[in-house]
């Protein structure tokens, strides 16, 4: 019933990308996102496309599986495109009432679509190839320096990993309780707003009870193992950079430099506009 949430769920496979240090993937994703919003011209766009396709191929995640994630944001895509199409000022092509279709609008719409699609593909590639645990580990270690300015990095990472861990548990629990109440004749689908809200009580009460019970059990289990926060805590699988990670950083860096260079080449030397002309 609740199984259709596939956007960014870990996809188990054995690939170069899966094996990379999560810090590389986090930094890489950030760099890729920045590059998406800086680039100018078709040369850089082609580079960003090739780079993305290369990474997806390397990750061994089926292309169709990644693209499925786009379905969840299709509304946002359409709205953004429509806004750009009709509200960008410039050379008017056609006009319906207050809506003007402009050359610049078409360009902006295409550009924004590409950016959003690549942004979603890029970030979901990261979450698809990195387990939530690795992700929080990577964040904790990558942002350790922030502790000096008083940010409780370890605590935040711990909360994140617990929260992430609880999502599938609670989803499963919701599914189970829903079925159990449906077996007692509950009806979650029909009726007006008030009737439906009322029908949720038999679902929500047991769900909260169970969430609190689980939180309580977890707290006890952590106490019983002498958990006392991040100081002096060691890791079972400490993050260490390998040769592959260094190469990945190098590749990322070259990509980023290439993107800047190609953008500059297009605007300054070839005198091109934002996207194509």
């Amino acid at each position, binding site marked *: 019933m609740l199984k259709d949430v596939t956007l960014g769920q870990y996809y188990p496979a054995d690939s170069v990308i899966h094996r990379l240090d999560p810090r590389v993937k986090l930094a890489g994703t950030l760099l890729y996102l920045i590059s998406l919003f800086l680039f100018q011209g078709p040369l850089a766009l082609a580079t960003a496309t090739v780079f993305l396709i290369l990474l997806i191929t390397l990750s061994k995640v089926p292309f169709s599986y990644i693209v499925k994630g786009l379905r969840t944001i299709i509304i946002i895509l359409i709205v953004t495109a429509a806004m750009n199409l009709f509200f960008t000022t410039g050379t008017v092509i056609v006009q319906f009432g207050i809506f003007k279709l402009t050359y610049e609008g078409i360009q902006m719409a295409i550009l924004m679509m590409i950016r959003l699609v690549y942004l979603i593909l890029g970030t979901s590639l990261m979450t698809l190839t990195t387990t939530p645990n690795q992700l929080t580990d990577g964040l904790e270690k990558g942002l350790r320096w922030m502790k000096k300015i008083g940010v409780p990095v370890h605590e935040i990472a711990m909360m994140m990993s617990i929260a992430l861990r609880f999502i599938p548990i609670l989803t499963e629990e919701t599914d*189970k*309780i829903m079925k159990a109440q449906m*077996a*007692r004749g*509950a009806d979650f689908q029909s009726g007006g707003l008030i009737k439906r809200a009322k029908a949720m009580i038999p679902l929500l009460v047991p769900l909260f009870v169970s969430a609190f019970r689980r939180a309580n059990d977890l707290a006890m289990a952590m106490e019983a193992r002498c958990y006392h926060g991040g100081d002096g805590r060691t890791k079972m699988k400490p993050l260490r950079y390998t040769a592959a990670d260094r190469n990945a950083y190098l590749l990322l860096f070259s990509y980023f430099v290439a993107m800047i260079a190609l953008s500059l080449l297009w605007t300054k030397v070839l005198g091109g506009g934002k996207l194509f002309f």
Partner: protein
Amino acid sequence: MSIIVNELNYIYNPGTAMEVQALRDINLEIKDGEFIGIIGHTGSGKSTLIQHLNGLIRATSGGIFYNGADIYDEGYDLRTLRTKVGLVFQYPEHQLFETTVMADVSYGPKNQGLDEKEATLRAVGSLNAVHFPEKHFYDSPFELSGGQKRRVAIAGVLAMKPEVLILDEPTAGLDPQGRDEILEMVSNLRSTQHITVILVSHSMEDVARYVDRLIVMNGGGVMYDDTPQAVFAHYKELEEVGLMAPQVTYVMHALAEAGIPVRTGATTVAEAKDEILSVLC
């Protein structure tokens, strides 16, 4: 009146990396008044199968017929089916939500459209049927002991007066006494209320004592479907799929191999005792 399961297949998360074929080619006929045990290793598909029987899960392929009607027909009333085929989930106490035991047990009957009075009457009847002590009828269900909570949850399903009662591991996590009480109660319900009972269990000893027919599931398929005696005769094959026949089966087979002419069909300690005494005396 019966449930017919025809060529049933079910796949969890089809088309993703987490694809699992939980049921394959299941064919069953469940007749009125039968007491059936379903047993199988963890992950063999028992819970998945029983959730099909009241239409909570829709089969990937195959069909289910309740009293001759195809439950996947358009316009088939699944909500009514669910009140006729009562399903008690594993750890049913986790679904309690009301402020009092009485209100919680009345939830099912009220969903059936009964008024307050009738629902309460049903609740009292089913709470008595599960031997729930009257003095706790208006207590909060969250303040009861584990075994009591489970009785309340079973009563919640019984109160809908189902024709078929399915229990998914009703004794999981109970002590031996609580376990015997629940099973004895289920067995009584079946004889007094003339309902069909399907009992999912991990324990061969439990099912051997009560059921007339035993379905063994393995890897999503039905491995054996026969009387407990006939199934336990395959005790070597059962071991290969991680199940054990009741201990008395082993004793009887060992005795027979040692040359004592006992019949090996005994499945409970009492039967074994009678058999051995009859041979020795």
